[in-house]
Structure formats: C-alpha cells, structure tokens
C-alpha cells in the first residue's frame, strides 16, 4: 500500500516544490530600483532616452572642473603661458611647471577618467538609440546627432591633451578594457565621421530654450575647428563660413555680454547645473571681492603683455583684486562666482563654441588660402569689437606671415582661458618649444603631451606611456 501511494505523493511533492520555487522567486523580486532605471528600459521611451542624453550634459557640468567643465581651461591654461596658480601647495602647480606626475590624480580623474565616462555614456546612448525601435524618428535623430557630437567633442580634446588614446566606441567593458592606443589620425577620422553624421542628423533649431543643446551649426563649428587643427584650410573656410552666414549668430558689441546666457555670439553653451554655481570657470577664477583671499589663478605677464594698448578686452575680460597692496589679475570673462545667496540667479552659461572663434578660424584659413583681404576682414571684425585699430586701415598691405602672426596674436587675446585654445595653438603651430623654453624653467619638448596616468597602464598593459614620462 505504501508503494502504491508513493508515486502519487512524489507527484504532489514535485508540484509543491515547483510552486515553491516559482513563488520564492516572486517573494524576493523587488523589481527595478527607484533610484535608477534599467539600461534596456531607458531607451524604450522618448522621454527617458532624452534623460539619458541630457545626462551627458549634466555630467559635463557637475561642479568640479572636469575635462569639459573648466578642467581643460585651467590645466591647459597653466601648461601654456596664460595663467599661474597663486597657491604653492596647489596640486595644479605641476601643470604650470609642465612636470605632471604620472600618478597625478587630477590628470587621471578629471581629465582621463572624466573623458572616458562621457565617452561611455555617449556610446551607451548611441547603442541604445540604434537598438531601440520604439523611439520616434525625429527624437532619435536629434539625440543621435547630439551623442555623436558630444563623443567627438570629448575625443577632440583628449587627443589634444594626451595624443593617441584608445578609441572606444562600444560599451562592452570586457572588450574595451584591453584596447590599445589608437593613432591620432584614426581618431581624427572617427571624429570627422561622427561630426558629419551629426550635421546630417541635426537640424538648425536648438531643442528647448537658449543654445544649450547641440544643433547642426554647433556640429559644423566643431568641424571647422577640426579642419583648422588638421590644416585642411579649404574645408575649414567653408565650414566656418557656413556657420558665420547661418543667420542666428552675430558678434556681441558689448564684451561683457559675450558670456551671458542670451549671447548672440553663442553657437553652443552648456547650462550651469549645480546649485550655487554659474560656470565652473567663474567659480574657479573670480575671487571673493572682500577679505584677503587671493584669486586662485592669475594671468601671466606674458599674456598681459600681449594686449595692445586700448584693447577693451584687457579691461572688460580681466579682473583685478588688490591684497596687501599687491594687484592680482584674474580671468574675468565670466563675472559670477559661487553664490548661495537668495539673489542667486543663473545668467552666465558655459561657452563651448562661439562666433568670435569662427571668424578667427576663417581668417586663418583664408590667409593660408592666400585670400588676404578676406582674412583681414574677418580679423578686423574681432579687432573692431575690441576697440583696436583695424588692419585694413593701419596695415592693408600686410604680408602673409605677419598676417598669420597677427591672427595668432588675436587668437591669444580673444580666446584666452577658453578651452585651452592657446596651448593647442602652440602645439599645432609647433611653437610650443620655442615660446615656452624661456618661460618655463623646466620645459622639455616632450611636455606637449600629458602623461597617460600610470594606474591605467598597470590595469591595461596594452597602453604605452608618452615619451618623456618614465
């Protein structure tokens, strides 16, 4: 009898066990976190996909001066001959002395790592959007265009700082962990390809208010910059020309309006994101007007000496604070520092690309293409705003070399402390060594590239160090 019953019991037993197993898995299922969204779900709706992409902007703009949020401006500004730190114990000093340690935390965390977090997010968004079939086409195009642009913007600056870096364009960490450094020309091609895709996908309108997300012209403007750095003068002229003639952009006559949120000159700005901050540059550069605290960074005598007499930029874009009888200068393009008071308002946005630079790009391209007259017109539009005499009047017959020199000088005074423009100009014009050897006591020719952070090489033995850092 016992044996007869057994099979039946066994069956019940199995049913109960199965039920238990199913029920148990339910019992401990908590679903997705409320603090976060699962990677697959986020690209299934237009609005959450938008959150993922605007997350890139937000990440750029968190308070610490990361790569694209003042970090570049400060580090490259120090490495060139623009600014110096007023604090001896400042960890940024090694950027000024061009002797960055291979274990420098700032270099590793805020330039290298920060760059790759943005690249990862852009890659994740690109993959997510391309794999999603539930996004509307116009949203999908806009977002993809933005992602390609933001990835390009990041790579563009990383190769300026580090030279060849691993080109990561997917999200699989197991694959990416072993990637070696990719030659810069290949990365340039990737950037170009991305930006061309971006200009194709984006339209001329900016999504939302102001100019804080990428449109077609922003992509074009970055393309113009890329062509300039590559020495592709024809394309540089054409791209910058299209931006200049696009329509919505014009130079602000008042220098103090250039970096405001509603600047007509802005092609792309990032929206301040952290409470109490306008821009990271303002927060870093503008000192407390009261008390005896020094500005964190002062302008070097070399930069101050570059300004011609009467240059309105020297008075409008440079601030001064007197402490114990000594006058300290500081970059004053952005006027607002940290402010947690009730009158706090965001009126300055972080400028990424602006028309002034496009004029200078076109001027340089035209000069190289022997369109001296056209180059002078573009250069003069910048000089005119600065209140300086026009070349067309003072020296219309200027020779090509002098014109190119004048353009470089103008870039120095117009674009100082903006995204490392001076450092990159010194590098692309191959004048870094000749200029800095007398200005930086410990200058070595290999200092034009920052070191690959040592821990990264340890973790990925496929990485090699830049010369001069062993």
């Amino acid at each position: 009898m016992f044996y007869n019953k057994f099979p039946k019991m066994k069956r019940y037993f199995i049913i109960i066990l199965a039920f238990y197993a199913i029920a148990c898995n339910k019992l401990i299922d908590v679903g997705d976190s409320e603090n976060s969204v699962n990677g697959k779900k986020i690209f299934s709706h237009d609005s959450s996909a938008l959150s993922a992409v605007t997350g890139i902007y937000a990440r750029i703009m968190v308070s610490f001066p990361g790569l694209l949020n003042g970090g570049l401006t400060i580090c490259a500004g120090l490495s060139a001959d623009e600014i110096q730190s007023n604090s001896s114990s400042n960890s940024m000093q090694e950027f000024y002395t061009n002797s960055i340690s291979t274990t420098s935390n700032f270099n590793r965390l805020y330039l290298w790592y920060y760059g790759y977090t943005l690249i990862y997010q852009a890659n994740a968004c690109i993959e997510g959007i391309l794999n999603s079939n539930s996004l509307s086409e116009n949203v999908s195009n806009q977002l993809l265009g933005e992602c390609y642009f933001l990835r390009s913007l990041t790579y563009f600056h990383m190769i300026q700082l580090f030279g060849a870096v691993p080109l990561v364009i997917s999200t699989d960490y197991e694959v990416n962990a072993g990637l070696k450094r990719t030659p810069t020309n290949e990365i340039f091609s990737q950037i170009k390809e991305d930006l061309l895709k971006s200009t194709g996908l984006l339209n001329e309108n900016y999504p939302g208010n102001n100019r804080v997300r990428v449109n077609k012209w922003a992509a074009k403007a970055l393309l113009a910059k890329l062509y300039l750095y590559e020495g592709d003068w024809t394309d540089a002229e054409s791209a910058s020309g299209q931006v200049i003639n696009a329509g919505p952009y014009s130079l602000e006559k008042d220098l103090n309006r250039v970096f405001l949120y509603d600047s007509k000159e802005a092609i792309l700005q990032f929206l301040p994101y952290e409470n109490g901050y306008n821009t990271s540059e303002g927060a870093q550069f503008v000192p407390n007007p009261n008390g005896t605290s020094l500005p964190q960074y002062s302008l070097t005598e070399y930069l101050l000496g570059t300004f011609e007499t009467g240059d309105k930029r020297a008075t409008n874009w440079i601030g001064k604070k007197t402490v114990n009888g000594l006058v300290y200068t500081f970059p004053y393009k952005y006027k607002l520092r940290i402010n947690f008071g009730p009158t706090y308002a965001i009126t300055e946005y972080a400028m990424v690309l602006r028309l002034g630079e496009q004029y200078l790009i076109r001027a340089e391209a035209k000069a190289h293409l022997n369109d001296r007259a056209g180059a002078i017109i573009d250069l003069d539009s910048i000089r005119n705003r600065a209140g300086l005499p026009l070349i067309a009047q003072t020296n219309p017959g200027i020779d090509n070399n002098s014109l190119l020199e004048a353009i470089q000088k103008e870039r120095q005074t117009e674009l100082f402390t903006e995204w490392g423009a001076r450092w990159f100009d010194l590098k692309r014009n191959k004048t870094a060594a000749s200029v800095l050897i007398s200005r930086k006591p410990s200058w070595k020719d290999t200092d034009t590239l920052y070191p690959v952070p040592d821990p990264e090489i340890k973790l990925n033995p496929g990485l090699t160090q830049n010369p001069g850092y062993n």
Partner: protein
Amino acid sequence: MKKFLAANGAGYVVLCLLFLLRASIPTNAQTQGPSDVNEMLNKRMDLTVSNKSLKTIFKLISSTTGLRFVASTSQLDVTDHYSIDVKDYSVTQILIELLGRQGFTWTVRGNVVVFSRSGPLLPFPPNSIAKMNSGKMNVITGIVMDEKEGKLPGATVRVSGTNLGATTDETGRFSFMTELEDLVLYTTYTGYVPVETVVNGDSIRIKLARANNILDETVVMAYGLTTRRTKTGSIGKVSSAEISRQPVANVLGALEGRIPGLAVTPSSGVNGTSFSVQIRGRNSFANGSDPLYIIDGVPYISSKTINLLGSIAVQNFDAGGISPFNNLNKEDIESIEILKDADATAIYGSRGANGVVLITTKRGKEGKASLQVKVNQGIGKVPGLGNLLSKEEYMAMRKEAFANDGLTADNREGSAGYAPDLLIWDQNRNRDWQKYIIGGTANITNLNLALNGGSKVFQYRLSGSLLKSTSVFPDDMDMPYLRGTGDASVTYLSKNKKLSFDLSGKYGKDRNQMFVGTLLGTMAPPNAPGPKDGNGKLVWAENGAEYDNPIADLYRKYTMKTGNLLGSMKLGYRIVDSLSFLLSAGINRYRDNENSQFPTIARNPDSDSASFGAATFGTQEIKSYIVEPQVDYTNTFKFGKISALIGTTWQYSSNTNMVLDGRGYTDDSKLDELSAAATTSLTGKYSSKYKYAALFGRVIYNYKDRYIVNFSARRDGSSRFGPGRRWSNFGSVGGAWLFSNEGFVQNNLEFLDYGKLRGSYGISGNDQIGDYRYLDTWSSNNFPGTYQNNLPMIPAALFNPNFSWERSKKIETALELGFWDNKIITTLAYFNSTNDKQIIAFRLPSQTGFMNVIKNEGVIVKNTGWEFDMTAEIMKRYHFSWRMNANITFPKNKLVAFPDLDNYTYALYYSVGYPLNVLKLYHSTGVDKTDGLYKFEDVNKDGSLSFPDFRNVGDLDPKFYGGIGNTFQYRGLRLDVFLTFRKQTVPNYFYAAFFNYFTPGVLSNQPKWVLDRWQHPDDQSKIQRFITTNELNGQLQNFLTWQSDAVYENNFYVKIKNVSLSYSLDAKLVKRMRLSGLRCYLQGHNLLTLTRYKGLDPETPYYFSLPTLRIVTVGLELVL
C-alpha cells in the same frame, strides 16, 4: 580537593556531588505526553470487572478515554485475567492498580500507552542511599513547583541513580511506581536549578529555584531556547541585570567587555553616539562587517550609524555617527545573546557571517500587579581635561618655535613670522578653551516605570521611560538629548496549553541636539580673542588681527529626531503532544528627521562673505516586515531526544531617504524651516527595497545528555543579487560531548562537575553589500536637478549579474569545564573563519567608462582567535559572597589572498599576509638628533618620500581585550566592579595635531606632552622641535608625520568601566512600608582609565572627538 571542601565546611557535599553526577545521566524515554494525553490519563472513571482478560479491560478503558494500549507480549500477557472494582479512579490509578504492582511502567506516545517492565537497573553507586525493597511496589506521586508555587509542567523527575522516573503533567504533577525505597529524587527543569529531594511520605512537593547556576540558565538561541549546558554552539549572554547596572543610554554600550569575541567600541562621548560592534573580527574586505541584530525575532537595522547628515558625532578616527539603537530602553531588555560560531549562526544563512546579536525584551510575569519605579539622576564629564599648556608655557613655546625657524615674530598678516598672539592680542588674557568648550557637566535624569503582572494564562507588562541628558558643551548652548519610550506586551497561554500568543509593541522617540563642526577650537591659543563681546556677539578679531572664533561651530545647530516602532507577534499552537506550530511576525518602522544649520552668526565676516544662512534637511524612513511560520517537533525516544524545526522566512525592507538644502536664509532663527529658504535644492534622494526569503531547518539530537549533535541548514534567497545568483545554501553541523557524564570521568575526576567538548563547522554568508548592485542602472542620484527641464540620468553601474554572497566558513572548538560544584566554570574556545568570495570593486581601466565592476574575486580574509572566559564563586560565607567573572580574547585577522593587489589603489592600504587594519605608513626613524625633526625611512632609497616608501608598521587590531567583573554582596548591599582592558595600537594626540596642522609651535595651544620636545642638538626626544611652518626642507612635515607611525601608540589600558553599589532594603522592612521592594544605588561608568596613552581616551583615539564621558548617577528603585 578535600582541603577545599573542608575549608568550606561542607564535607557532605561530596555525597551530593556524586549523586548529581550519577543522576545527570539521563534515563530512557519516560516523558509523559503533553496535556491532552495526560488529560486522558487523568480521566476518571468507574470500572468494575471481574476475571476478564487484560485485553478486554483495555478495550473498556479505550472506549471511555480514547487511549490505546500497546505491550510487548513477551513482557505482558494480555490474556491474563484480572479483577478490579474501583470508583472515580483516574486511568493512571487504574493502571497502577492493575499492573503497577507487577513492576510495569508505561510511557505515552500520542494517545498510545506503551507498557514495559522497568528496564534493567543501573548498578547502584556504592554510597547510594536508595535500597532495593524486595517485591513491594511504591507509588511515588508529587508536584513540582517554582519558588512562587507556580506549577511546572514538563519537569523531569527521576530516581537518583536509576533511569526510572516521570515527567510532570500540566498541573505539575507526576507519578510513577518503583520497588525502590528510601528514594532520592532528582528533578530538572530547563532554566531552574536541579534539586534532589529525599522521599519522605507519599506526597512530595518539590520546589525549583530559577537557575543562578549559569549552566542551566536559559540561553536564547536562533529560533529557540537552550542552556549553557546543552548548547552546541558558541553563544554568549548578557543578562538584564548586567545591562541595568550600567548608566548608559544605549544598550550596545552595556555590552563592552562582557563577552569574549565581541569588541564593542563607542565612537565618541556625544549623546546618541554610535558603537562599532564586531563579533570575532572583520570578515569582509570591502563590505559590511556588522552583525545581524534581531530584536524579539524581528531583524533590526544592521548598520553602525543611521544619520544622514554630519555633526560633531562624526568627528572620529573610525567613522562615527548616531546609533540606530538609541530609542530602545535598556530597562526593557531581558537578555542579549551573542551568537558567534557557525553552529549558532548558520541558520541565519546569508546574514549570519558577521555573527548575530539577539535581543530579547521583557515580558510580563505571573503574579499580582506590581509597579516598578526607577528614578536616577547623574552627571557626566569629560575625563582627563586640564593638561594644556599654561599661558606662560604657551608663549614660551611660540617664541622657541620662531627661534627654531630663524624667524622674528611680527604683526604683518601673511608673513611667516606673523604672531598676533605674541604681539597684537591682549597679553594677559588666559583661557583654557578646552575647558570652556567641553568642560561642562552633563546632567542626566532618567525615569522608568514598569507595570507587570498577570494570571497563569495571561500576563502583561507595560513600561515607560523618560531620559534627559544635557551636554558637556557650554551651558548657554543648550544641547540636550531627550527620549521617551513605551513598551507594552501581553502573553497568553490557553488553559489546555495548546494555544499561545505573545504580542509586544514598543515605541521610542528621541530628540538629539548637538552641533556641526569640530572641536579644533579647544586648542585655541590661551589669549585668543573672544569668544564674545559685551553684547554677547561672537568676536572674530582683536586690534585688527582676526582669528576664527573657537566656539563658532557650536552655533551650527544640529538636531536629529527619531521615532521607532517595533512590533512582534508570536502565535503558537500545539497540534499534538510533540508537534507544535508557531507563526511569528514582526514589523519595524524607523523614521528620522535631521536639520543642520549654518547661521550667519557662525560665519567669519572676514573670510566668508555669505551674509545668508544655510540649512540642510534630511529625512529617512526604514521599514521592515518579517513573517516566519515554523513547525517544531520534539520527542524523546529510547535512543535519545530529538528536536526538529522547520520554518520559512519572508522579509521585506525598504529604505527611503532624502536630503534637501535650503540656502539664502535671511533670518538665523528660521533655519529649521525649509520654507524660509530663498532657494532649496534636492541634494540626495535614495530609495531601496530588499526582499529576502528562506527555508530553514534544524535537527538537534541529544543522546542521554552525553552526546548532542546539531544540524542546521538554510536555503536563502535575496533580492540583492542578480537573477540566477539569488539562491544559495548554508548549513552547519555542531556537536557536543559532555564527557563529565561518562563513568570513567566521574570515577576518576571527582572535582570535575561539568565537562564539555564541543565543535562546529559551517558556512554562512554576508549580503551587506547594498541593494541593486547587479543592475546596469541609469540613475539620477548625483544629479538631482534638471537640464532644460529634463531629468538627467547617468549610467550608475555596469550590468553584472555574476556576483553573489560573501562566504564565511567557520570552525570552532571549545572546551567547557566546571569545577568544584560548578563554583568555577570556564570556557576555552578557538575559532577560525575563512571568508572567501569577497565582493570587491574589481578594478577596470577607466577607458571602460568605469573605475571598477563588482566581482566575487579571489580575496580571502581569515579571522582566528582564542577566547577564554571564567566565572567563579570565590567566597560564600554567611551573608557574604564574592563572585568573579573574566574573559579575554586574542583575535587575529589576516588578509590571506588578494590577486594582483598591486594593481589596485587598495595596495596603498593593504598587504597580503597582514591584517585588514594594517597600518601602511612611512616608518619614522624618530626625531633627528641634529635638527630636531621627525625623519622617515626612504624604503626605496630614491631620495624622496612617496607611497612606495610605505611599509607595514603595525595594525589597528586589538592584540587582546576583555573584561573582569567582581561582585561583592553582603546582605542587601551589593558592589559590582567591572573592568575592561585592551591592548591595541591607536593614533595618539599627535595624529590629530599633525592632521589638523596643529604642529607644536604654531598658533594653537598644546597639551603638556609636547614639553618633552627636542631643544638642542644631541637631545634625545620622541617629540620633534617646535616649529611654526609646515613646509620644511621642501617637504610637508605635517603631512609626512601624519602619514607615519610616529603618531601611533601601541597601548595597553585598563578601564574601570562600571561600578555599581546598591542597597536593597530588608524584605521585612519593605513590607512594613507596604512596598514590595526598595533599593537605592550609586552607579559609575567609565570612571578611570589606567594608561600611558597620550590623548584623552584610547577608546576614542581621535583627539578632537568627544571622549566617552565619566558618568556617576544615583538612583532609587521602588516596587509597589
């Protein structure tokens, strides 16, 4: 041995002793059944039968009672004919009448009565007083009661030296038959002292006293009760009396030094401070090593700190904060058990790896209603103040420092020689800022009421308490701690003992006030300006020379309010005799609100231009539910006693919290209102859910109280792991051999009353790794604002389902011995836990977009150690007694393996083969004789000091720790003195000084220890010369020193942790006052620390955290 006994004037003890030994050999299954069966046996009936077979008679009884009868035909011939004529006899009596006289006994299983002839008798001990009485059967009946004459059902009564006996029924009665005469009965009952009773007449009344004997005291274990005698695992117990004697507000504070293997360290002396509680060392490399806390069956918050915002409470060497245990009233606690080894903890599965703290709260007791009123009043002060430099010494130090630096003091701010203290400020002012800031007296008032009583079936307890404790900060700052608690519980046990019910609810609410900031102001120069001017405003400068006001931080108010509800329910039903069902369920809800303020008044007008106040608000809610149905089976067979348990758990916990910032306040008095802020922003928001389910079981097999084996197993599922990794199995096996119950021990080692060898092996897990960590999540956590009205999301983690629990494999062996009538009881234990499958953040090159991904990599951490504890009754004479207990632990922690450690930043702090708390620092070669500065070893000889020059210079683990308690009692007067001791390397004063740039010689006061400094070439000193600058010879001298072993001390200290003197009034006197009890007491906590340590308190080694207070309270306890 004889000498010992003779000295005690108790020669007769020998006899009893031997008896005890013999008697503790268990008999075979004589357990009478549970209530229903006993009821059948007690059923009365009339029976008139003449010359009928037993079979027929049994049938008759069956038809009336439902009982069935089984007998072996070889023993009992049921065809034999009997006659009986009785009226109103119980079945037992009938059976006795029929068969008892023939030497039969019977046991009951279910509703079956099994007959057997009294088994073969054990050989009598030669000095047994029991004698065989040829042929004649005696019926032995009696009753077993507790001290208050309450019946004790289930007590075991046996004839000493035999296996004969019975178990009491629900009325506490027993009966059996024997042919023995002049019996001595040996009665045992869990939690009571066994007694021997000489049979004297027919009706025997046996009274059992609650066990003072720690061997037979009830000890709470996982899902059940046991005793120290029969437990197979490592469980330490702290009783309510021990807890109650200590004037601490937090129960965790009462555990310090009490249990071997349990290291409890307070974070600081502020009200509500957190405690680090570690059972047998740090098991987890990178995740939580906190024990699992269970209060009345409900899992409680297992994190050391609960606060969201910072305050003075977080100023510690080891991360401190506010404890989640504050609103639990220690007077409501019955006992705290610490479960340590695998045998005791494996049944908690994935949560048991770090040990378990079981907190059991008080329940009502049978008796008439009584009200206990306990009032005490005390004071608390920071011990060890008053050793700062005098003003003259300070001025001399400053001058010496400038001279050493080759500088002349000047009054130009910003210059290296700037010395406002020597040249600008009032030269006559002399203030001990330390005394001013933390030299106050905390007043502590505590009121406890408890109402207790009930009948046999229903008991209740209601209690309430109020606590107010002010702070040692300046009186006008008013930073009190207030707490109220309420506790209500009812227990019910139906008359037929089938249904039981236990319901308890507790609510505690507190408000803790302190400030945000540091205690750096305590080291302000003696003539620093301020603190306040004539109008009561903070002073920030004198004669134009500014100085951060030393008391400004005190104005940055911090308030934390918490409310905590704990409810538990147990519903039990005894299905049959040996099988019962229990449903336990519980709820815990913890809420807190925090507010930290930065008023304009606390801002230096010179360096801080913000003319607006700011405030931060934190709110948090933690909810937890648990349901645990269980079935318990306990039965005794010929081959031993088996208890089996099977149950399931379902648990749900959620945690939501949020931090909001308010800025731009124009009114300092409104900083506790978010709505008064000009701008508000969300700075953090988090919510998580945790679900947990398990199936668990345990079987304990006890053979004659001689061999005990315990198997436990648990299958666990947790939502913290990825799909496919959620379920896992845990288990343990533990065994005990009570060798003192073996004849060869009894015969040869007479001084040994109790000897047990036990051991266990098992696997438990640690899931304290946070929630949702396997998901490839996108989160807006750190990005609470919007970007163009879009909520930005960023990738928070890589998808990684391939990690699981951390695993802990624990081995324990222990020897427990009791000597001389168990006057001395000792335990020596060795433990070894290997913790592998450690979850670490596996480093990735950051080109992947992440610094790391979580993996169960090959990291292994091992904890081993020896524990010893002892209790001894040193003297007991007339009304005087002296008892002592002591324990000591020698722990050892080691990082056994960490593949590729060098590729991790972990390599900066850890070394394979060394403890997790290793100190990797520069090795200081001491103060250089020539220049008077600390010098450090350049390990790699590259001419400069950097991380590669770090080496293992020691570790922060205690080398040994423990406690010694002495209790002296003379009539109603009782004195308890409890000492704790520890040997451990800890940072000393100089750690804090160098860390905060308070190098001796700079613009800040110093303790007198610095006077021992280097002064002249060739001076041999351990303290470097006075300097005013930080940068020396191109190095940051402060920073290097701080990162070296020069600021750590290997230190041994003994603390008089607790002294309690109490006097209970004589019972007669009390009765005359119409009270049930009256006791007054004086209690001291943390009274004295004997140490050479250079700091305020080696237990809270960061000099700028508030040390544990010295507390003295006086109190009165009335029972109405």
